[in-house]
């Protein structure tokens, strides 16, 4: 695949193009082999927090990485507000715009606990597939004698309507099964509307389970991307002023200079792979910028319904399930 003797398959970034190598066919000449895949595959978690995860998948092809990414975005289910019953809306936001805003509020409810609502005619749904919320709020005067006309907090009550004002209305056994803290909007301070005295909301909201393919509001991630691992090699010792110039050509933290003034690559991982170094021909001939072709860095940010690593696992399971469904049908036909 890559040069003989070169262990890591690399893409070398030249000034205007990728280095052409007549012996390098990329992945096009690589036959899939189960033993090789199992031996070469590695998964490393780099950073993990409540909502974000960064992990490496090593030994896969772009096709596999892209299938996982696409499934995370559009086929892992989540709950979102689907029906909005507006009994009263005297705010300045039109009904249809308001309804759309409600739809885009991410919900904490775990979609695995609910079923898809299959019956289109049944508007209200039942306790297994629908969550009900209400928003009943009115903006009123607090004090009319405030001198500073910009001090809204002193003058009005409820002049900013946030997602925290949406109240969950448990149906059937929902109240005993789930905790209110794990059902409502992911963030308390999502601004829905601004109001002035006399404006009022009286709204019923119904949330259902869906997938991102149907509408982006059902997507469980705010971000799901992958990129290749950058690798920077210094071919010659670079010192003094050149070293400082080199450091400026890359993202902060990528190139460091040691005590004797010699530049070294500290951490190429977070380089943005700009080709700034090619502005200085004397410098660039001693630097090789490349990316590792089978080393994928995934970044996933969950909206709050799942832990980020769960989204990835569900995506892999979804892909497996797709194959299972098709195989079952093919095997059934052949009998």
């Amino acid at each position, binding site marked *: 695949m890559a040069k003989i003797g070169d262990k890591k398959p690399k893409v070398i970034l030249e000034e205007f193009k990728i280095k052409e190598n007549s012996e390098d066919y990329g992945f096009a000449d690589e036959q*899939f082999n189960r033993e090789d895949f199992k031996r070469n595959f590695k*998964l490393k978690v780099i950073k993990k927090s409540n909502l974000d995860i960064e992990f490496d*998948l090593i030994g896969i092809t772009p*096709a*596999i990485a*892209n299938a996982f990414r696409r499934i995370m975005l559009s086929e892992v289910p989540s709950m979102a507000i689907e029906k909005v019953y507006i009994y009263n809306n005297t705010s300045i936001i039109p009904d249809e715009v308001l309804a759309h805003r409600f739809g885009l509020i991410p919900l904490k409810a775990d979609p695995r606990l609910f079923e898809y609502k299959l019956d289109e005619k049944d508007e209200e749904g039942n306790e297994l597939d629908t969550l009900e919320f209400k928003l009943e709020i009115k903006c009123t005067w607090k004090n009319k004698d405030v001198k500073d006309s910009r001090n809204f907090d002193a003058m009005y009550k409820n002049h900013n309507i946030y997602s925290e004002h949406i109240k969950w209305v448990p149906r059937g056994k929902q109240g005993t099964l789930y905790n209110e803290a794990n059902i409502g909007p992911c963030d308390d301070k999502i601004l829905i509307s601004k109001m002035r005295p006399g404006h009022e909301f009286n709204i019923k909201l119904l949330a259902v389970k869906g997938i991102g393919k149907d509408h982006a509001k059902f997507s469980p991630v705010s971000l799901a991307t992958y990129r290749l691992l950058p690798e920077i090699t210094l071919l010659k010792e670079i010192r003094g002023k050149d070293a400082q110039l080199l450091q400026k050509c890359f993202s902060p933290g990528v190139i460091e200079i040691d005590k004797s003034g010699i530049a070294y690559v500290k951490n190429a991982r977070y380089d943005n792979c700009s080709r700034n170094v090619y502005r200085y021909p004397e410098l660039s001939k001693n630097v090789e910028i490349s990316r590792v072709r089978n080393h994928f860095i995934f970044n996933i940010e969950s909206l709050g319904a799942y832990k980020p690593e769960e989204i990835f696992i569900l995506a892999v399971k979804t892909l497996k399930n797709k*194959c*299972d469904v098709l195989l079952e049908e*093919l095997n059934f036909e052949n009998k």
Partner: protein
Amino acid sequence: MQTEKKITEIAGDEHDNQTSSTFVIEGEGHTLGNILKNIISNYADVQFCGYTLPHPVENKIHFRIQSTGKTKAIEILKRGLEDIKFICDTVLETPM
């Protein structure tokens, strides 16, 4: 959903002993099409493999497989799906 057929075959390849086929996969798009094509096209007994999404609003793909003459196209498709399953299993088995 389960009662509807997901895979059908386009007519026109009856003469060559089922070694070439175009499958129509309902409800799938680039997500499955691309990974399946990339795995199948590198098999030693595959002469050609490609897929197309005939129309962006129709949720189906046409998946073409031509074998070198010894294997049935449907067997290659099955092997491709099994290999994707193997990849998924390997990923799932790896502790996170």
